[in-house]
């Protein structure tokens, strides 16, 4: 007996909710970045679960695309974090307010 499709979707929804809460809750730019990665992984889980239950390879291919986007995001995002730290000596997202007034 396999767990139903609904339980995979529920797990994915719970992980996505945790990630979304973390994006708002964290002050640290790296923490926000890691929570975004968690949300991407939650979406990947739904892709793989649907791919399994409909026996279609497209879901797994798009997981591969999401992983490529996540890798690109890691390179660019961490570059931005380092540049921000160099200017402000902090990676608190609340300090990124130079455009505010």
């Amino acid at each position, binding site marked *: 007996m396999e767990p139903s499709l609904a339980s995979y979707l529920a797990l994915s929804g*719970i*992980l996505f909710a945790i990630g979304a809460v973390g994006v708002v809750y964290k*002050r640290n730019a790296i923490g926000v970045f890691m929570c975004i990665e968690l949300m991407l*992984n939650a979406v990947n889980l739904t892709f793989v679960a649907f791919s399994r239950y409909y026996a279609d390879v497209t879901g797994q291919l798009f997981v*591969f695309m999401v992983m490529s986007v996540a890798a690109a995001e890691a390179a660019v995002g961490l570059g931005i974090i380092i540049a921000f730290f160099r200017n402000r000596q902090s990676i608190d997202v609340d300090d990124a307010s130079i455009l505010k007034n």
Partner: protein
Amino acid sequence: MVETILFFLFAGFAIACGISLVYHRNPLYSAISLVGVFLSLSCIYVTLAAPFIAAVQVLIYAGAIMVLVVFVILLLNLEDDKPRSSLTYLYGVAGGLGLALLAQAFFIFYAVSRAPKQAVNMDETVGRTLSIGQGMYTQYLLPVEIVGVMLLMAIIGGVVLARRLSQPQLELVVDEELDRRMESDQKDDYRISF
């Protein structure tokens, strides 16, 4: 039956690691929790008959991306995250958002488990490397090419961003702005003055 036990084991581990990721204030502990999430999701992919995705998950996420994140954490020598002094209403926003998304997840669980059962096609060859490679280089060739171009752009962007600024004017603008703010109000937290 074995799949169900494994699913609940790894699902519980993934959720516990996810909560620990948000809860810990030390970014290194958060990073290690995130590796736990990645590894348990990879085990769930194995039970979903997707061994290629499971291997790629460990290689790219737990191997490459998290090593990069841990390098940056250690390079910047970060201290622990402090609780917010300003913008405390964001805690309420986070709680509301989390509750709304959880309600949505359980609604989906309820709706999908109530839906009429379809004849599930358990084709074991779908997750194999062969079928993924065939799909990738025949039907989905254009998306793969686009991803390649996007990775090239990301590499160039990463190099440009991480390099020291060659135009001194840009750094001067930021320094002047910081000096101006420090002079304009001598409070510890200049954000309050907005």
